[in-house]
């Protein structure tokens, strides 16, 4: 790692920011040096995204009487009125949510602010050439710059977003969760680009939940908790556990994760499920009281399988048996699945699992409105008390059950989704990436919840891209590869190597970032 230069680029002191009902930041001091990567870590709701947005000009800090909580850039007062002001000063941000225009091409998205043109007509040759250069640097060399962005996989879209951010000159680059959807390969390329920027003297603010990455790439790290700075240290001084302890305020290693339940009778049995070329002849069974994990590369068909089981997509063939029954149940739409006691907590909770504009209580009661209503008339009092019960039981941090779910943090939103299905009391619960985008503290709460659910006799399926997570929580792990279920491991049989090699087994080597399925190797 290049030694950080000493010149201070950005200095922020005494930053305060409050939103209705919550103090997001209080008295935060932060500084960034030239050519350094300074990471921001903290639980969801700790304030790191808020701080980043203030630096990028998207939000403005609160100003208190007399005490100016302010920022300075290169020694001069820095008070951007908006994102455009910040960008004029050379401060750019690549946000977590993708801001690409789906129907425009990759090249157009990268250079959207400054399309090369002649007399008002876009110079496509120049555009595509310039785009190709940048794309090669971030590992998108195989993608055509003339392809519309919506045809790319999520990981590739994120790389386009990053390429767009890298392509413009800046003094400070803020990256908010840049690696959320990337494969290891792409992450390495990104880090190479970051190191190049460091050499050029650019200051980089790196926000991430992935602490190992932070330790790898960052020079210094600032830990935030509840809107306050806990510590700012050099990453060479800190270990993974130190950082987690500062983030959460307690030691998490000691948490008892291992779920030691014995499995009961078969709750769900899937035979020969097939859907196009995404799900090929998948057969498995899940028992009551067990947590069954699904591992595999991105695009291996796990989500598609579960969506077919749930009826969200209609399968081409296959049978589903419930509770050890002899006759297969007909599941053609989610309604059938829910009536038969299956619940699906989707990968994308904001788009598919929640009604963001509606209140917490409306979201929780949605799947079982008949319980809080009589003859079609909703009993709001009862609805509130039921919702309140679940909010308490799951420790959802919200100002009240009336608060709009869209205002909660990721972890709390996920808890609302869980509360919704708990209220429904489904027998089989399918979790698709339950801890994605959730901070460490909330993650452990969710693991504990999974364990409790299994203890209560539910059959739990967990899809996750985090092998360590699966190995900590599950009784058995199934591995999918290119649409096939290639292996199932019990607790004493598995290892990271075995699972990973099973995951790759149906592909020619390489990352799973692309949507296309790769050729099968003969074995």
């Amino acid at each position, binding site marked *: 790692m290049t030694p950080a230069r000493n010149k201070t680029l950005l200095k922020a002191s005494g930053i305060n920011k409050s*939103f*209705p*009902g*919550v103090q*997001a930041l209080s008295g935060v001091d932060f500084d960034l040096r030239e050519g350094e990567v300074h990471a921001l870590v903290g639980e*969801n*709701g700790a304030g790191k*995204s*808020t701080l980043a947005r203030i630096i990028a000009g998207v*939000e403005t800090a609160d100003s208190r009487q007399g005490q100016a909580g302010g920022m300075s850039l290169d020694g001069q007062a820095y008070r951007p009125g908006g994102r455009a002001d910040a960008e004029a000063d050379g401060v750019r941000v690549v946000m*977590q949510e993708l801001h690409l225009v789906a129907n425009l091409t990759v090249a157009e998205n990268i250079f959207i602010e400054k399309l090369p043109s002649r007399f008002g007509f876009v110079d496509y040759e120049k555009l595509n050439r310039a785009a190709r250069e940048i794309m090669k640097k971030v590992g998108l060399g195989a993608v055509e710059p003339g392809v519309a962005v919506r045809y790319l996989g999520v990981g590739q879209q994120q790389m386009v977003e990053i390429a767009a951010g890298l392509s413009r000159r800046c003094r400070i680059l803020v990256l908010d969760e840049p690696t959320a959807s990337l494969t290891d390969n792409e992450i390495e390329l990104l880090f190479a680009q970051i190191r190049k920027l460091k050499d050029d003297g650019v200051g980089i603010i790196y926000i991430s939940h992935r602490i190992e990455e932070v330790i790898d790439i960052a020079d210094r790290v600032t830990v935030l908790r509840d809107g306050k700075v806990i510590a700012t240290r050099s990453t060479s001084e800190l270990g993974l556990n130190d950082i987690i302890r500062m983030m959460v305020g307690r030691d998490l290693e000691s948490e008892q994760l291992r779920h030691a339940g014995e499995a009961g009778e078969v709750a769900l049995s899937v035979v020969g499920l097939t859907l196009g070329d995404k799900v090929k002849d998948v057969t498995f069974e899940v028992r009551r009281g067990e947590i069954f994990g699904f591992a595999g590369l991105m695009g291996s068909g796990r989500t598609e399988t579960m969506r077919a089981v*749930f009826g*969200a997509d209609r399968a081409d063939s296959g049978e589903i048996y419930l509770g050890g029954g002899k006759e297969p149940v007909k599941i053609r*739409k*989610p*309604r059938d*699945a*829910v*009536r038969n006691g299956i619940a*699906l907590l*989707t990968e994308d909770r904001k*788009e*598919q*699992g*929640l*009604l*963001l*504009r*509606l209140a917490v209580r*409306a979201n929780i009661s*949605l*799947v079982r*409105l*008949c319980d809080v*209503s009589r003859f*079609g*008339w*909703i009993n*709001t*009092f009862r609805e*509130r*008390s039921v919702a*309140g019960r679940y909010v*308490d039981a799951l420790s959802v*941090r919200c*100002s*009240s059950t*009336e608060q709009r779910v*869209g*205002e*909660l*943090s*990721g972890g709390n939103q996920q808890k609302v989704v869980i509360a*919704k299905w708990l209220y*429904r009391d489904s027998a089989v619960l399918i979790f698709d990436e339950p801890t994605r*985008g959730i901070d460490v503290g909330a993650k452990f709460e969710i693991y504990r919840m999974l364990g409790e659910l299994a203890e209560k006799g539910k059959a739990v399926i967990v899809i996750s891209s985090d092998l360590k997570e699966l190995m900590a929580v599950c009784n058995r792990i199934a591995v999918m590869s290119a649409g096939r279920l290639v292996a199932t491991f019990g607790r004493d049989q598995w290892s990271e190597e075995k699972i990973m090699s099973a995951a790759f087994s149906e592909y020619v080597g390489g990352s799973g970032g692309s949507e296309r399925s790769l050729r099968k190797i003969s074995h």
Partner: protein
Amino acid sequence: MLRRVVFEKIRANSWQKQKTWCLGDFVARKGMRMIIEKRTAGLLAFITDYLGMGLALALLLVIFGFRAKHFFTLTTFRMIANQNADTMIIAVGMTFVLIIAGIDLSVGSVMALAGAVLGVFLVRFNLPLPAAIAACLAVGIVCGLANGFVVIRWKLPSFIVTLGMLEIARGATYLVTDSRTIYIGGPVEVMTRAPVLGLSLGFIIAVVIVVMGQVVLSRTVFGRYLIAIGTNEEAVRLSGIDPAPLKLGVFVLCGFLTSIAAVIHTARLSSANPNMGRGLELEAIAAVVIGGTSLMGGRGSVVSSFFGVLIIGVLGTGLDQIGAGEPTKRIITGCVIVAAVILDQYRHRIRKGGGTAKN
């Protein structure tokens, strides 16, 4: 602002911070808090929602009251109420359709068709009034079914489908009436001759429908599902609720309400004119939008749409009485619609309190 102050006070003793409680304690305190919260929240929300509309209406009444000699009279008010009864009913149906993020452009034509059927059944087939009304209502229901079915089955935008129905229904109206106005007279006057306080039966029916509509939307399971569908249809589907029958129900409801409006309109004019209802869909949409319902779905209020119709009605009658010509009327009405939507943006921002979603 006031609302926030009240909430802060309540949260100062927040149950969130206290973890170890006994059940009875919890229930008692929670209940108390709920009552307080609910009353304050409900009251304040009620005021902010309708205050704006009420003020606008009052303002218009005052302005016209001063400018036109006979405006501020019972006769004028009765006239406004009775003349806009049909639009009010259609606005209720339109509100529901807009809430599920759809739109129904065929209401004007369907009303004409239903009215034509009513006229034909009464005059040409000499059927008794109840039978004719039943046929009229059936027309509305069938058109609504057709709209809904095509939208759902082929997943088409309701804009296009109802646009097609607009043409089809209008053409059918001409066919049914032979392109001539049907004068009804006697059989239907029964309906106009039962006023309460000078307000026609039609207006009474409209008010009842408005109240029922608001109650259904805000308090019933059906209404909750509709708001959910308008907010995020996919999330509703993945929660195990099939949105298709609900959406179909909304289009049928809109058609049904349109045919009720047809009965009232035809009775008021005592004739079935094949050109009636032209442009009515846009008037209804304007009223609903003035009332604050979002064209994107998931948000809306039937009572607000009612006030929206009143505002447009007052505006129209008032402008007539001060002698404004038809062109001027239209320009001013258009400006009012745009102004209302702009103001609604600000009102929404105040309600939200400027909070932004966290990560």
